[in-house]
């Protein structure tokens, strides 16, 4: 490639690889891909600073479609590869692309430990509540009773709530968005990328082939606003097409949906506070369709990243012992002959 062909300014287009994108027609993954490609150029980094790491699953084809560095790794293990990479080269912008099976089933262990270490990376979790790549078995986020090829009479198991799980691991940034709501998705990705530490974005994603109706009216742009609460820090939790409904906490410390009017006014509603872990946990328990889906930044707080902690320890050790020198180490009294 001649120098002339290298785009000076990063654009969404320049992040597209030469591979034909191969997901099923109508799959939610296309929209997620194009939003990631839109957001990356806004981060002010050169292309070579981006790395996209995936595991196994439909979503994990992602790195092939990005004209960035990437690794298509092992089922469930992407967060561990990303950990190694992010710690070894803190200048990189590391993106883990994963699905509900990859992150929460086989990779559940790595998922929580990456989050609790607060490694500086972004996890985009495509949650379609089914195994797509192996053609339609139930996943760890499938609803109880979900019928699939491996649960012909309905799944017996309770689903995992990825956001509650991330909170248990002391996540410092958690957001949720929806594949068909591209504008919202782009905004959330940008917030996630700016956060220092591990950011988790759960994307409600449509698997049109094996779980097409999972998100029901959320996927209908005319109806969705009655079923979504767009979270804004410091704002009361009002929602609905006509902004006439809200979320309040009742006397049993449970969330409930109320109609705004004579009985309840905005003053009765919860006010979003991204720093509150307790509130985040309650919001995470709001399961559509009984509640509106809570989209936006659910939880965000500043905390030391793993790399920052590591650098502090290195600085501390150097302050006490001086900067290491290989020669003096060899000649040190701590060596012995055998």
């Amino acid at each position: 490639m001649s120098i002339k062909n290298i785009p000076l300014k990063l654009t969404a287009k320049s992040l597209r690889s030469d591979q034909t994108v191969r997901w099923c027609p109508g799959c939610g993954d296309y929209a997620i891909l194009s939003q990631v490609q839109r957001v990356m150029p806004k981060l002010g980094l050169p292309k070579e600073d981006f790395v996209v790491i995936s595991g196994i699953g439909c979503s994990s084809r992602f790195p092939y479609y990005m004209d960035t560095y990437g690794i298509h790794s092992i089922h469930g293990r992407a967060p561990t590869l990303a950990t190694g990479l992010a710690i070894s080269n803190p200048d990189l912008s590391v993106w883990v692309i994963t699905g509900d099976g990859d992150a929460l089933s086989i990779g559940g262990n790595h998922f929580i430990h990456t989050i609790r270490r607060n490694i500086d990376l972004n996890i985009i979790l495509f949650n379609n509540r089914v195994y797509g790549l192996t053609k339609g078995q139930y996943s760890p986020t499938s609803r109880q009773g979900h019928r699939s090829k491996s649960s012909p009479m309905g799944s017996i198991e309770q689903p995992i709530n990825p956001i509650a799980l991330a909170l248990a691991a002391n996540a410092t940034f958690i957001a949720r968005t929806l594949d068909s709501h591209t504008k919202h998705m782009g905004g959330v990705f940008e917030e996630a990328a700016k956060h220092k530490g591990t950011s988790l974005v759960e994307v409600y994603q449509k698997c049109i082939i094996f779980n097409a109706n999972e998100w029901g009216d959320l996927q209908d742009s005319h109806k969705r606003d009655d079923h979504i609460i767009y979270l804004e820090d410091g704002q009361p939790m009002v929602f609905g097409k006509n902004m006439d409904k809200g979320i309040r906490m009742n006397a049993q410390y449970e969330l409930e949906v109320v109609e705004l009017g004579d009985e309840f006014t905005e003053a009765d509603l919860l006010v979003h506070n991204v720093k509150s872990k307790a509130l985040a946990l309650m919001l995470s328990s709001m399961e559509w369709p009984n509640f509106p889906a809570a989209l936006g930044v659910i939880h965000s707080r500043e905390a030391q990243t793993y790399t920052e902690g590591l650098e502090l320890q290195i600085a501390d050790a150097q302050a006490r012992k001086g900067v290491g020198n290989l020669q003096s180490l060899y000649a040190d009294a701590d060596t012995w002959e055998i």
Partner: protein
Amino acid sequence: MSKKLIKGNVALAEAAVRAGCQAYFGYPITPQTELLEHMAIRMPELGRTFLQAESEVAAINMVYGAASSGVRAMTSSSGPGISLMQEGLSYIVGSEVPVVIIDVMRGGPGLGNIQPAQSDYNQLTKTAGHGDYNPIVLAPSTIQEGVDMVTLSFDLADKYRTLVFVAIDGAIGQMMEPAEMPPMQELHPRPEWAITGQGERNEKNIITSIYLGADNLGDFNDKLQAKLRAIEESEVRYEAETVDDAELIVVAFGTSGRVAKSAVHHLRKAGKKVGLLRPITLWPFPSKKLAALADGGTKKFLVVEMNMGQMLHDVRYAVGRDIDVQFFGRAGGSIPMPEEIQEKAMAMLEVN
């Protein structure tokens, strides 16, 4: 009972059901998933256990637990999943619990691809976990043989209290062929050693693979080796065709064994003195038979595999260094063609 056209993965799953498998634990992986899906339908309707685990690591340890209770238990997977199970495999053999695993092999290393391959030969016969042991490995080449081998695998696992693999490749798993299913077996009573609650017994049954102290572990390993030698003595299985006067013998298993068979038939028709040795047990390996054939006058062996030459080493070891052993193989997901095998065999025959 009549023959029925049936998909390989489904046939092997149904054979396991009929052999009295009472507990199945597995994780979806191509090209094995239909096996799991068939179990998802059949096990609950028979009042037996089906559980989709969160990973292959979980699945094998669930199998370990279920088998310890004395029921016939199994899992199924493919190369990457079997790699993950290694830890459990070693503990299962170390605690002498009977377990059956069906491996529908695909291409490796790493993620490789989902095309048929025989990339797990070494992993299954030699490196299935740490310690000194080999699992029994059965390698059918047709769906009917697969059905029969699954039935046998449970009997061998119980008889020797050991780990038994039935290894097919994606081609056998995915294709359809007429096969006759065995009748439904009665469920087997739980054996004496199993974890069933102490009840009237004087001794507790404890399932463990820890043998503290050099003597204890040494004694256990001696006992284990004696068992493995007994398996080698009694359980070698193979198919031999037109080997007695053969100048050249093609050695191949599973799908490549099947292709090799048509190549050998062709060459025989053309008047070439060619035979086929198709190992059905990959471990114990038919080394003695191969050695006898080499001693009996066959000086050329052609090993055909859908990998880069894994069984090849066992054949070389069996026949010795004076014998011309050559290899034809493919790794990457394509099945060797009979013509290619014929060509390679002809080239070997032409050299004196």
